[in-house]
């Protein structure tokens, strides 16, 4: 995990001080709401249906146990005792008071957490594979590059007032767990013919009301050029992206209107004049960041320890969980464990303060104090010894995060929907809860195999419905909640948009959708 140095800590503290001043000026009326809105958004503060919402970044999905305890503290002290993990490796608190926001941010800052650029028309939290650093199929740890990008794009003076929000995701594995092709910039690390590692650069992916799969504009970008090339893309977008219509302001529209080739030429021309300047990455700059990523000093273990074999043979429930929620690790004797935040009948992605505290303790005990957050809205313990799996399972089961439904039909990705969000047209959470109840019989769910349902409460597509195997989109018809259903979408390396199945159906029929 990345450990902040004095520069990182100072910047976050200065940000809290600045935001406190901005909130004071808003409360005194010195700042109008119109002036305040972009400032609060760039600190992750939304005004929702019932209250202010605070969105905290979890860069590249990596959390320390101390940070998770801090999130639990914020849930308990400033909110209603729970938080909601999102599809972009963030966590949201839905009930925070504006006056208390600076204090909540100060508490978060002490643990190296912040809401910087989790919202607003700027570069958002950089996301990557939640298994980065431990996945057997990765070519290197993508988080080092995500952190280099994060730093470069934090409070960037040129790119803080872009035409629209801007999302970047990276993967360094053959299997893309970061959905990079539905991002404004998707970066895929791979090795070229000469044996060098670099990035395939894709632009203009995204969901929302005009979904696009990203197009490749640079098949191989050397690592030294990562920052300068991203800078060139952003500079092109900042100048030529549309600002006349909010629905046409994302980079995907610019890429679509110019055509990927012409866009690529614009970027190339810009890049040629900056690539050998101050942004070129030398080995020392990369090593400096890499040196602050902490890796566990694993004990030497063997795969398939006897304790595990015995428990697998004796306990069917444990076996079902291992089959479903435990993945291979790059180091022998270790495992990657996914914690399902999709309980039967519960809202997807929510965790209570007590669960967060308990998971932090379990991370200390079994996972070198480290937790990951994935875009599927589940948590991960990335460094578990296989021999500890039975004990860990019992502990996770006791706090309700061992439902063996990872990647099954009840592992639903959903946005907060009309229960919280001021943009939504329809509710998402009750639909998700109903589906999980219908498929609580895990044999039935398993018989369907890997199946992703994604639910969005409006066309903004925060639940990524276009890339769900089954996608459900809430719409409003004559003041009532209706849902459009798409099928055949997927988010990974072979990303595709789903096809509309037919006319929208009303909310009341949702219990019968399981017959689809």
């Amino acid at each position: 995990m990345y450990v902040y140095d004095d520069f990182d800590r100072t910047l976050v503290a200065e940000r809290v001080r600045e935001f406190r001043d901005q909130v004071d000026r808003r409360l005194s009326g010195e700042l109008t709401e119109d002036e305040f809105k972009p400032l609060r958004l760039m600190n992750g503060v939304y005004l929702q249906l019932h209250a202010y919402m605070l969105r905290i970044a979890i860069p590249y999905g990596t959390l320390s146990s101390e940070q998770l305890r801090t999130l639990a503290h914020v849930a308990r002290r400033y909110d209603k005792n729970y938080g909601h993990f999102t599809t972009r490796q963030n966590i949201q608190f839905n009930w925070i008071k504006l006056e208390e926001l600076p204090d909540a941010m100060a508490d978060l800052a002490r643990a190296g957490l912040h809401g910087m650029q989790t919202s607003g028309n700027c570069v958002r939290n950089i996301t990557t594979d939640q298994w980065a650093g431990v996945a057997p199929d990765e070519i290197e740890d993508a988080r080092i590059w995500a952190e280099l990008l994060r730093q470069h794009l934090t409070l960037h003076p040129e790119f803080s007032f872009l035409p629209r929000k801007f999302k970047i995701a990276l993967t360094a594995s053959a299997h893309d767990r970061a959905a990079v092709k539905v991002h404004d910039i998707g970066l895929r690390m791979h090795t070229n013919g000469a044996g060098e590692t670099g990035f395939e650069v894709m632009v203009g992916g995204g969901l929302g009301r005009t979904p696009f799969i990203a197009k490749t504009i640079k098949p191989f970008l050397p690592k030294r050029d990562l920052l300068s090339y991203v800078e060139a893309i952003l500079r092109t977008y900042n100048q030529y992206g549309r600002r006349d219509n909010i629905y046409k302001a994302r980079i995907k529209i610019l890429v679509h209107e110019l055509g990927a080739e012409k866009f690529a030429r614009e970027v190339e021309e810009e890049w040629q004049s900056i690539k050998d300047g101050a942004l070129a990455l030398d080995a020392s700059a990369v090593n400096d960041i890499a040196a602050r990523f902490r890796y566990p000093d694993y004990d030497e273990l063997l795969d398939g320890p006897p304790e595990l074999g015995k428990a697998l043979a004796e306990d069917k429930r444990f076996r079902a969980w291992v089959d479903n929620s435990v993945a291979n690790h790059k180091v022998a004797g270790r495992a990657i464990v996914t914690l399902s935040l999709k309980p039967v009948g519960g809202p997807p992605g929510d965790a209570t303060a007590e669960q967060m505290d308990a998971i932090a303790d379990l991370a200390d005990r079994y996972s070198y104090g480290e937790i990951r957050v994935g875009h599927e809205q589940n948590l991960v313990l990335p460094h578990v010894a296989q021999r500890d799996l039975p004990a860990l399972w019992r502990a996770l089961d006791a706090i309700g995060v061992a439902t063996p439904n990872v990647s099954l039909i009840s592992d639903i990705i959903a946005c907060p929907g009309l229960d919280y969000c001021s943009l939504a047209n329809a509710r998402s959470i009750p639909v998700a809860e109903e589906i999980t109840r219908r498929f609580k019989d895990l044999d039935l769910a398993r018989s369907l195999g890997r199946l992703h349902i994604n639910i969005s409460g409006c066309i903004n597509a925060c639940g990524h419905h276009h890339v769900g195997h089954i996608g459900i989109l809430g719409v409003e018809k004559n003041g009532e909640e209706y849902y459009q259903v798409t099928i055949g979408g997927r988010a990974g390396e072979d990303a595709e948009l789903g096809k509309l199945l037919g006319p929208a159906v009303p909310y009341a029929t949702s219990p019968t959708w399981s017959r689809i």
Partner: protein
Amino acid sequence: MLLVKAGRVVEDRFLRVLDDAPVPDGVPAIVPAARLLADARDLALRAAPTGVIWPNDRRIAELAPYLDWLALVALVFPTFKDGRAYSQARLLRERHEFRGELRATGQVLRDQLLFLQRAGFDTFEVTKEADAAKFAEAVQRYSVFYQPTSDGRPSARRARAARGVAPPLVPGTREVVR
């Protein structure tokens, strides 16, 4: 609106010439972009400094032929949320090496002053009087900057390089590197 230069409120010595109005002799003047392109030869020969107000939807490269004699370029923020002129400013300073006065005009508010200064602006038509008074404070809110620009503030990367590469962490420990 107050003009801030070098952290202080100053009087604007430039006269803003509108559209086709005559440009008075011997007075520093700012002309619209179309006027500059049409009358460049005459304007270049004026006895007093000439500046241009350049809209945020025109390419900065078009300005390049005039930069060696222009005393001032004013870039426009129609609202503070429209950030195109930040890119224009950096291109002027960093690519075209423009050393004249670079002025931010339009909706120029306290919470954007630091970004503006970092992008290369050195004079600011600050919209609110209270913001002009707080200029110095507003541009000193931060002491850490992750990205190198032409404003002279050292980036964290340079500062880290000067300090030397951080020592590798002892594997398995939870110490915070300082």
